[in-house]
């Protein structure tokens, strides 16, 4: 039987009322945990695993997949409205999304995130269905040197796109890279910069840093501005997307999908990297560069599509190789094993009905998510009409609870406050905060891949450009780095003077 008729058969399996009910429970729970910072999809699936022991395999796996997709979906809501990203993949969404919300355009921001997630989820699930075996073969040819080249590309494009000044962007990035050095070195097991504090052994938690810099830093900044206490964010215009919004969003959705899916499929990729690259791509390709930094809709549409497409992408190595590349995927793997199924090269052959049922259910879950989320937008944005002191008080509470929820330790709380104050200081002096988080996430990945590549090649640096993929990626990075410099040298005086002016 060909893939298409297998998928149709899967849709018939998935259309049973009970399966639909499991999918509905999954997406509802997933959205809820995505909205709450601190409770991620991984923890939710882990909590539900024993509950599903008595259910049939198809139903519970479909529920897990619903939670996974729902979590990716829900994460955008708090990022956009409260500037409190609940997970690393929705950090970039906060950059443009929250600015849009403050400009009174929270409705369209949430809508483009929801519809973008839907479009990306739909396309990526179909790609999963038809291309999984081919994609995984390709992903396996990539080794540490290719991943290192990909990280370099991400560094160059991302650091150049944040903030108005390259110097300030890079300063922030290097603060992030320095923070990334804290913790146990993954390759030798040596502890770095931990000063004997065991909680620092695993490094600085990304969500703690992100929540501190974004939410706490901003709450402090708002409080320090001494604005009239009754101020609130006004909602301007419709909560729906306008024709222009649609026109500007759809290309970003598609680009996000085609960036997110392959990166999610890579064993060392991930939704966060995908969302950074998508943001960088949108910023480079936009026809409205002046809006970036003040709330450009492409900056929400692209990354949100990318992180959902990447979520579908991670199912490729899970189903075809039994390779869990995220914590959630690892628990889903345990779920498979609970029913005596071993994901791997033989799963598609031995349990075809279940696999295609799962893929079909993902398509259905995706439709349910958009139906569930679009009407909620009107409700969510009412959050913004809460008077500002109350709103920020709530954000502080929410951020603190979320952080202790993940890691119940006073050290974690101390870091939250410390980074919160740092975030306030950076805002005060005009340094962008996003590159700090980017540095913290990408720094260790780049370092480990570089050292692995060199260890495999026994210290031979030419290994980095020895394959066409790595050489091409590094070549593109070099172009991105050098061309703007050359342009400045050729007398773009205003750029130079801006850089000089920033260096005070």
């Amino acid at each position: 039987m060909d893939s298409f008729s297998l998928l149709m058969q899967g849709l018939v399996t998935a259309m049973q009322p009970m399966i639909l009910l499991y999918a509905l429970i999954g997406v509802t729970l997933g959205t809820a945990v995505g909205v709450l910072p601190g409770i991620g999809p991984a923890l939710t699936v882990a909590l539900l695993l024993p509950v599903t022991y008595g259910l049939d395999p198809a139903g519970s796996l479909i529920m897990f997949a619903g939670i996974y997709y729902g979590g990716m979906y829900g994460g955008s809501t708090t990022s956009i409205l409260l500037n409190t990203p609940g997970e690393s993949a929705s950090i970039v969404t906060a950059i443009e999304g929250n600015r849009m919300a403050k400009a009174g355009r929270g409705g369209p921001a949430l809508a483009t995130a929801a519809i973008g997630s839907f479009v990306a989820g739909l396309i990526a699930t179909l790609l999963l269905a038809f291309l999984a075996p081919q994609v995984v073969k390709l992903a396996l040819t990539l080794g540490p040197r290719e991943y290192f080249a990909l990280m370099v590309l991400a560094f160059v494009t991302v650091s150049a796109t944040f903030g108005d000044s390259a110097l300030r962007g890079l300063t922030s990035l290097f603060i992030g890279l320095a923070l990334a050095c804290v913790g146990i070195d993954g390759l030798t097991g040596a502890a770095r910069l931990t000063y004997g504090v065991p909680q620092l052994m695993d490094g600085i938690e990304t969500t703690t840093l992100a929540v501190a810099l974004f939410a706490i830093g901003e709450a402090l900044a708002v409080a320090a501005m001494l604005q009239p206490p009754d101020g609130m964010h006004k909602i301007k215009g419709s909560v729906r997307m306008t024709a222009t919004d649609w026109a500007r969003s759809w290309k970003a959705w598609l680009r996000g999908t085609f960036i997110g899916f392959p990166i999610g499929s890579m064993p060392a990729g991930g939704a966060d990297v995908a969302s950074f690259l998508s943001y960088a791509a949108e910023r480079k390709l936009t026809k409205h560069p002046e809006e970036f930094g003040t709330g450009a809709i492409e900056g929400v549409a692209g990354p949100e599509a990318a992180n959902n497409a990447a979520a579908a992408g991670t199912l490729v190595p899970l189903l075809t190789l039994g390779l869990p590349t995220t914590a959630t995927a690892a628990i889903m793997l345990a779920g498979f094993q609970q029913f005596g199924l071993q994901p791997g090269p033989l799963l598609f052959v031995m349990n075809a009905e279940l696999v295609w049922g799962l893929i079909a259910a993902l398509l259905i879950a995706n439709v349910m998510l958009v139906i569930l989320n679009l009407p909620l937008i009107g409700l969510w944005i009412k959050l913004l009409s809460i008077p500002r002191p109350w709103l920020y008080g709530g954000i502080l509470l929410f951020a603190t609870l979320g952080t202790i929820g993940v890691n119940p330790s006073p050290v974690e709380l101390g870091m939250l406050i410390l980074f919160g104050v740092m975030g306030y200081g950076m805002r005060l002096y005009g340094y962008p905060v996003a590159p700090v988080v980017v540095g913290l996430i990408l720094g260790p990945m780049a370092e480990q891949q570089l050292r692995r590549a060199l260890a495999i090649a026994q210290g031979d640096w030419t290994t980095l450009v020895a394959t066409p993929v790595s050489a091409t990626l590094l070549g593109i990075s070099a172009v991105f780095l050098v061309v703007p410099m050359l342009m400045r040298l050729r007398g773009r005086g205003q750029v130079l003077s801006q850089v000089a002016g920033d260096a005070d």
Partner: protein
Amino acid sequence: MKHAILGVAFAAALAVPAFAQDYTIMAPANPGGGWDGTARAMQEVMQAEGIAKSVEVMNVPGAGGTVGLAQFVASNAGDPTKLIVGGYVMVGAILTNGSPVTLKDVTPIARLTGDTEAIVVPAASDIQTLEDLVEKLRADPGSVSWAGGSAGGVDHIAVGLLAKAAGVDPTKINYIAFSGGGEAMAAILGNQVTAGISSVGEFQEQVKAGTMRLLAVSSAERLPGIDAPTIKESGYDVVVENWRMVAAAPGLSDEQVAKISADIEKLNASEGWTKMLADRGWTNTYLAGEAFAAQLDADIAATETVLRDIGLVQ
């Protein structure tokens, strides 16, 4: 509900304290790992079999389990309802991190499960046997890159022991640490490294599908249903097992320890646990009491030696 009633009846019938005790199990790792899996499997079976009325799992991740261990020891002394899951990886982590809290500070109850390590090469590799691999290792230790889990973990220790047994300087081994089994497996399948090492279960499907070749396993005896020699019968005196255990809080009375040990023994004897282990592909290596305490001491001593040899502990 039916299970709960059955459970109460079961507990009453045995006339061990009339009411089943509640437990909180700490998994000193993130959701999704082996310790978390063990804790949640215990939770499920203990509740279903009525060994305990309510079991809660709590995750305290960090530093190879030492963050959780420290917290467990600091806040639960004398509390007989608190359990912690741990394992061989924790032994290594305590040594490499110089953790002030060690396994001496908890009350070990029993070893529950174990995983055997397996050495594999990509199907495309020209290495056919463990002897071929060791020969290459002897000729040039650096040219053999090993993909495995975290530095100082059980995979790393096994490679160190093999090198030592083969007369190769363990500090010269080219061990590439990957986070989690997934990335290491991708590197092996993608032919990025010479060999790979992880638990047998992790490689089983790939070996069946013919994408990897299984060279040897690290158990003392050959494993049923697995067509590979042990490292030992290939002539290198290396036996490694990645075990997982359950321990209780420090400062308990003998009666309290006996009660917990009885509950864990009931868990081990239950049908639900046997089925759970079969589903997850874990081997039951139950060992309790004095025998376990002695084994634990021996493992700690052996691990310390090999970590010094690799150069991870000074």
